[in-house]
C-alpha cells in the first residue's frame, strides 16, 4: 500500500481550540482509510493528484486559507445543505464551506446530547463541533442552517449554543407563494452577509460570483458526462471524492483542476482506457448525501468489481445540475434568477417532488447505468419514504433496483456486501 499522510498542523489546531490528542488520532485513521480506499485503486487518472493533495491538506492547508480570509475581514460561512446560496457569500468576497458530517467517529459525541435515532449526518456534523474535532467548524464565523428536515432544523437550535447558527426558511412546496417566501429569505441572507462583511454587494460582484459558481457546476457537469463512457474513465470513488471536495475548495481553482482532470479523461476515452474493464457492471447511486468521509457504498460496490457511474444526490448532481442564468447586471433580476435556480433543487423535503423521479430516470439513461442503488441514510424519513416512488418507477421501467438504508457504523458491512453482490449477480444475469 502506498504511503499517505494527512498533514498535521498542531500550531494551527491549538489556535483553533481543538481537542488535539483526539484529533490527531482521527487524522491518522483518515489517512489510513484514504490510502486503502483510494490509493490502492488501479488505473487512476494522474490528475487525481490534486485531489489527493486536497485531502492530505484537509486539516491544515485549506484551513490556513480560511484563516487568512478571516484575517482579511472576509466572512467564512459554514453550510450543510445545497440550498444555501454560496454565490452571495462569494459576491461578498467571502468563503463558503460545506461542513463534514460523514464520519462515525463524531457520532458518539453527538449522542451525548442529541437523540440517537436521528440521521447520522446530523449527528456526525453536530458531534464534530461538540467534540471540537473539525478545524472547519472551529474556523467558521458562523453556520447557516435551513428548515429542510426536522432533524436539521431542530438541531440548529442546539448547535447555536456552540457556534452562532442562522437559519434560512426553505419552503416545503413549490407554489408561487413559496417562491416569494424563498426570494425574501435570499434577500435576508444577503443582508446578513453584508452586515458581517461590512460591505454592500454590488450587482457587478454578484454577476461575477454567479459566473464563478456556474463555472464550478459546469466543470462537475462535464465530469459527469465523461463518466458515461465505456469503459468508465474514472472510478465512482474518485468522482465522489471530487464532488465532496467541491464543498470546501476554493471554487475557481477547483473548477480549473476538475477541467484539467476532464481533459485527461477525454484522452483516456479516445484511447479506450478505463479505470475499470469495459465489462464491469455499471451502477448509479441515488438518494441522500454522502458527506466526507462517507465512502461506504461506493467502496462496497467497487470492491465487488462494478463501477459507479453517477450520484443523484446532494453530493452529486443535485448540487450542480442547474446553473443560474447569467447576463443580468440588475440586482432584482439576479436575485430572481438565483431564486429560480435554487427552487429547481429536487430535495425530498419538498412535497410533491415528482421532478426527482424524472431526474433519476434521466440520469440513469444518460450515465448508461445498468441498475440503480437507492441509498438512504438511516432515519431520513423523507428519502426513505420517497424511495417508494423511485422503486415503483424502476419497476415500471424494468430497471434493476436495490434499496439500502444504512448509517456510518461498520456493523452491517457483511450484510451489505452480500446484498450488493447479489444485486450485481442479478444485473449480470
Amino acid at each position, binding site marked *: 500500500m502506498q504511503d499517505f499522510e494527512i498533514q498535521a498542523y498542531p500550531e494551527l489546531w491549538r489556535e483553533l481550540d481543538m481537542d488535539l490528542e483526539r484529533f490527531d488520532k482521527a487524522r491518522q485513521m483518515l489517512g489510513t482509510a484514504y490510502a486503502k480506499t483510494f490509493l490502492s485503486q488501479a488505473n487512476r487518472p494522474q490528475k487525481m493528484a490534486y485531489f489527493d493533495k486536497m485531502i492530505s491538506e484537509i486539516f491544515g492547508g485549506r484551513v490556513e486559507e480560511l484563516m487568512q480570509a478571516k484575517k482579511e475581514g472576509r466572512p467564512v460561512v459554514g453550510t450543510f445543505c445545497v440550498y444555501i446560496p454560496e454565490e452571495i457569500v462569494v459576491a461578498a468576497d467571502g468563503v463558503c464551506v460545506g461542513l463534514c458530517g460523514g464520519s462515525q467517529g463524531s457520532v458518539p459525541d453527538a449522542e451525548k446530547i442529541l437523540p440517537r435515532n436521528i440521521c447520522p449526518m446530523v449527528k456526525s456534523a453536530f458531534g464534530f463541533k461538540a467534540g471540537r474535532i473539525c478545524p472547519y467548524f472551529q474556523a467558521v464565523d458562523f453556520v447557516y442552517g435551513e428548515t429542510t428536515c426536522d432533524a436539521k432544523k431542530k438541531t440548529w437550535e442546539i448547535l447555536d449554543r456552540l457556534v452562532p447558527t442562522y437559519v434560512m426558511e426553505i419552503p416545503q412546496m413549490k407554489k408561487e407563494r413559496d417562491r416569494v417566501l424563498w426570494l425574501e429569505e435570499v434577500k435576508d441572507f444577503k443582508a446578513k452577509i453584508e452586515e458581517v462583511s461590512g460591505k454592500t454587494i454590488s450587482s457587478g460582484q454578484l454577476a461575477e460570483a454567479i459566473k464563478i459558481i456556474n463555472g464550478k457546476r459546469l466543470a462537475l457537469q462535464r465530469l459527469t458526462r465523461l463518466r458515461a463512457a465505456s469503459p468508465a474513465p474514472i472510478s465512482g470513488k474518485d468522482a465522489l471524492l471530487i464532488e465532496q471536495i467541491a464543498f470546501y475548495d476554493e471554487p475557481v481553482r477547483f473548477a480549473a483542476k476538475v477541467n484539467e482532470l476532464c481533459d485527461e479523461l477525454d484522452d483516456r476515452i479516445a484511447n479506450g482506457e478505463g479505470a475499470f474493464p469495459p465489462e464491469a457492471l455499471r451502477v448509479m447511486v441515488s438518494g441522500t448525501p454522502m458527506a466526507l468521509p462517507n465512502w461506504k457504498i461506493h467502496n462496497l460496490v467497487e470492491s465487488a468489481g462494478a463501477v459507479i457511474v453517477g450520484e443523484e444526490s446532494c453530493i452529486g448532481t443535485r448540487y450542480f445540475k442547474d446553473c443560474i442564468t447569467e447576463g443580468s447586471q440588475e440586482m432584482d433580476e439576479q436575485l430572481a434568477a438565483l431564486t429560480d435556480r435554487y427552487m429547481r433543487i429536487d430535495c425530498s423535503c419538498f412535497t410533491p417532488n415528482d421532478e426527482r423521479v424524472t431526474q433519476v430516470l434521466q440520469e440513469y439513461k444518460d450515465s448508461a447505468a445498468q441498475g440503480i442503488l437507492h441509498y438512504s441514510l438511516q432515519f431520513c424519513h423523507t428519502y426513505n419514504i420517497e424511495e417508494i416512488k423511485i422503486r415503483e418507477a424502476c419497476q415500471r421501467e424494468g430497471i434493476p*433496483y436495490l434499496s439500502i*438504508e444504512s448509517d456510518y457504523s461498520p*456493523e*452491517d458491512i*457483511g*450484510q451489505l456486501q*452480500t*446484498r450488493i*453482490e*447479489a444485486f450485481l*449477480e*442479478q444485473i449480470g*444475469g
Partner: protein
Amino acid sequence: MYIGVDLGSRTVKMAVWDGERLVEHRIEPSGFEPHRQAEKMIADYRAKVVVATGYGRHLAAGHFADAVITEIKAHARGIFHEFPGCATIVDVGGQDSKVISLDAAGRVSNFQMNDKCAAGTGRFLEIMAASLAYTLEEFGRAALTADQEVLINSMCTVFAESEVISMKNRGIARDRIARAVHSSVADRLAGMLARLGHGDPVAFSGGVARNPCMVELLEKRLPRVLVPELPDITGALGAALHGTGI
C-alpha cells in the same frame, strides 16, 4: 463431481452433485474457522469444481473454491432445481432472513433481506427457545401443539425477550408463548413478502424450514408453500449446480 459449500454463520453445509443427482450432503458446525472446516469436508471427494457461498464465501475463495456466488443466487438455483416454476423463496437462516423473487427462468429478479437486526431469523428463535428452556426441536413441536395463542408485539430481539419474560411471570403457559414467538416471526416474513410483491408458489428454505410450526404458520398466511426435503442444503446444492456451468 461438483461440490457446493455453504459457509454459514453457524454451520457449514456441503452438497455433492455428480452431474445427475445429489450423491452426498453433510452439515457440520462452522467452528472458529469455517473455511478450514469446509476444506476438511470436501477433502474426501475428487471435485471437478468447488463453488462456495454463504458468509464465508470470500475466505473460501482465497483457499480452495473455484468460484463464489451469494446465498441469494445459490438458494434461487437450488430451489428452482427442486421446484421448477417456483416464483418466490423465503429463506430463514441463522443470521438473516431473505425473500427472493424468481423470473420464469429461475433467475433472481428482486430480493430483500432483513435489516441489521436478529428479529425474524433463526438466531431469534434460538434465543427465545433458550429463554423458555426448550431445545430448538422441542420449541417447534411445543408451539405446534399449543392450544391457544397470545400475542407478542415486539419485533426487536431485546424487547421481545423482555416481553417473553413478563409473559412467563404472568403465568402464561410455555407452549403458548412459544407459539407467539413463532407467529411473530411468521408475520415478519409475511410482511417482507408483501413488500416484495411476491408470486406463488413460495418455497421455504434454510434450516428454519425444518421447524414444523413455522411451516404451518406460513401455510396459514400464503396460498401455497413448498418445503424441500433437505431445506438446509438448498444453498450448497445451488452452489454445486452453479459449478456445472463453469
